[in-house]
């Protein structure tokens, strides 16, 4: 037995990584002459101590759950899908088309159809890189990155030339009809004498994201398809020997991945902006990589990691509002967390493993 216990791998390693990142961030904040302790208090107060702060935290969390799951599916098949950003953009296009051109009677129907549209559009955008990988061996990292740029250009063309209302300055669609507006947390939980989640963008898609986590677990660990994906990820040659088709698994895993990324657009486009704007994804597709890495590609871990990044985003907004810490530095703090939890994972893991092994030998 040369492994440390599972709880240490799943809990201790990320926790220490976050602490290290926080420590380094504190030094950076100290270096520009602000108090790190005040900054932390402000972040916690702004993101977790008020219901509207939670509303924003959970709004960002919803985005990151979807993109985290997107990256995780591909990870299980040992593929690196960097195209979540582009797949979410195209997913947003699907949502916008459905919301603008189908007269829905009620938001629940609209949500159902829009979810389908978002998933199909996102999945189709992932299909071409998947096909190229499966049949032609073009590396998925390269093709998905390139497809992000193509998606941005397509979206730009469609918004500027086709969907923009005449005379409008913004490259954005018209506002969706009222029947497609999703209930926000404020609509669901606020009472007249207790105005919870006031003005916050968190909406019903958060529950959809939680459902997606559950479905992800069921599919990955309780179905034959999930087993095949994981087997393929562990060893392609063994999977082949067992009769699993690499082409099929590559394509199916990427379709699932793209579909999940596309569904992120429900939250930003249908839930928050209620129209499709050019900049709807805002890098959530890339944050998804960090979320999936940190969450060990497991839905529970992804949920927690998404919550952490949601907190960082909302806390960062509070810092920008009430301190003179420039917004570039807030990006630096977010990047440090990504660096430590994602890229420098082994820096914490290996010494920790050694400590545990030494302890075991001593015992």
């Amino acid at each position, binding site marked *: 037995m040369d492994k440390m216990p599972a709880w240490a791998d799943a809990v201790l390693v990320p926790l220490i990584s976050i602490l290290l990142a926080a420590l380094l961030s504190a030094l950076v904040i100290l270096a520009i002459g602000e108090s790190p302790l005040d900054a932390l208090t402000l972040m916690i107060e702004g993101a977790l*101590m008020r*219901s509207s702060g*939670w509303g924003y935290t959970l709004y960002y969390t919803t985005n990151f759950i979807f993109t985290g799951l997107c990256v995780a599916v591909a990870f299980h098949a040992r593929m690196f899908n960097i195209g979540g950003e582009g797949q979410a953009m195209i997913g947003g296009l699907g949502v916008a088309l459905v919301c603008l051109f189908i007269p829905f009677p009620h938001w629940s129907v609209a949500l159902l159809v829009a979810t389908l549209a978002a998933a199909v559009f996102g999945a189709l955008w992932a299909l071409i890189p998947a096909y190229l990988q499966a049949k032609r061996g073009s590396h998925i990292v390269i093709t998905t990155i390139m497809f992000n740029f193509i998606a941005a250009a397509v979206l*730009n063309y469609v918004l500027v030339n086709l969907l923009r209302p005449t*005379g409008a*300055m913004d490259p954005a669609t018209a506002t969706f009809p009222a029947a497609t507006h999703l209930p926000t947390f404020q609509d669901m939980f606020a009472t007249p004498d207790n105005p*919870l989640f006031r003005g916050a963008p968190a909406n019903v898609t958060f529950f959809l994201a939680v459902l997606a986590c559950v479905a992800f677990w069921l599919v990955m660990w309780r179905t034959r398809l999930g087993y095949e994906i994981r087997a393929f990820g562990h060893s392609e040659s063994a999977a082949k020997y067992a009769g699993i088709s690499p082409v099929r698994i590559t394509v199916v895993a990427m379709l699932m991945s793209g579909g999940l990324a596309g569904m992120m657009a429900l939250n930003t486009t249908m839930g*928050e902006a209620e129209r499709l704007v050019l900049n709807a994804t805002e890098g959530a597709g890339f944050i998804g990589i960090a979320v999936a890495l940190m969450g060990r590609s497991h839905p529970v871990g992804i949920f927690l990691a998404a919550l952490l990044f949601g907190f960082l985003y909302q806390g960062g*907004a509070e810092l*920008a509002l009430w301190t003179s810490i420039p917004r570039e530095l807030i990006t630096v703090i977010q990047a440090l967390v990504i660096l430590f939890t994602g890229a420098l994972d082994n820096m914490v893991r290996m010494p920790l493993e050694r400590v545990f092994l030494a302890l075991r030998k001593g015992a």
Partner: protein
Amino acid sequence: MTLMTKFLGTGAALALTAGAALADPALIYDLGGKFDKSFNEAAFMGAEEYAAETGGSYKDIELQSEAQREQALRRFAEAGFNPVVTTGFSMSSPISSVAADYPDTKFVTIDGYVDPSEHPNVLSILFSEHEGSYLTGVLAALASDTGTVGFIGGMDIPLIRKFACGYAQGVLATNPDATVISNMTGTTPAAWNDPVKGTELASAQISQGADVIFAAAGGTGIGVLQAAADADILSVGVDSNQNHLHPGKVLTSMLKRVDVAVRESMAQGADLETGVMMLGLAENGVGYALDDNNADLITAEMKSAVDAAREQIIAGEVTVHDYSSDDSCPALSF
């Protein structure tokens, strides 16, 4: 669950009482950022002038994401900042959805438009960019030897076409045989900050014979002005006075007094008069820049011609067509 709700509710109540004492103004910059050498920076300068003149203080924020637009508006309003001044047309739709929740807070949208009958606590400040551009067009036509002048816009939106259209009208009114070449840098917000492309477009226009080029393109314009100075022809700056960037090479700048708009809105404080304010030549909201750097370029005849045009527009004898009024331009096709 109930314990959680109670806990969150108390937190909200605490946050509300904590900030209620303030009555300072707040300023929200658009995604371009505070120091863009152009539009947002002009707003920052205005706020600094307010602080220096009144000894007051103000709060500002650079946005990071789309979702923060509404968030920043709400948080400033909840904390008691008044008025909340915003720059850029993208802020007008978030203001429309927030304004009704904070009837005691005054919101200002510069370059944006919010219907005053729906939201009585919003001031929309618009500029007659077409009138100011007309004047620079008059100067460009008089300064040009080749009879060909250029226009380089940033992002291709109606607002920038409004600049181009006013400019072309000024040129053609002064020299009916002149040719106006017009190019837009792009169709995305990236077009506001692409000086390399600006240089390329300027070089292309120079090779077509243009010897005065007007850049209404934010940070992209820096490249246009540089290319013009390198080729020893004249350029026209925009928004802020950019004459000093290349002394003797920048014919003039089309001034858009965003700084004055910000300063005045902040100075009026909570008593700010709302509605729609159109700042044109008469209000000195737009104009052309004349200082030591371009004094030698503007001859006495040019000055009297452009000042005459200014008087005529103010008096209503000359009407400059506004592109955004009907999405068309009689003097220029896009």
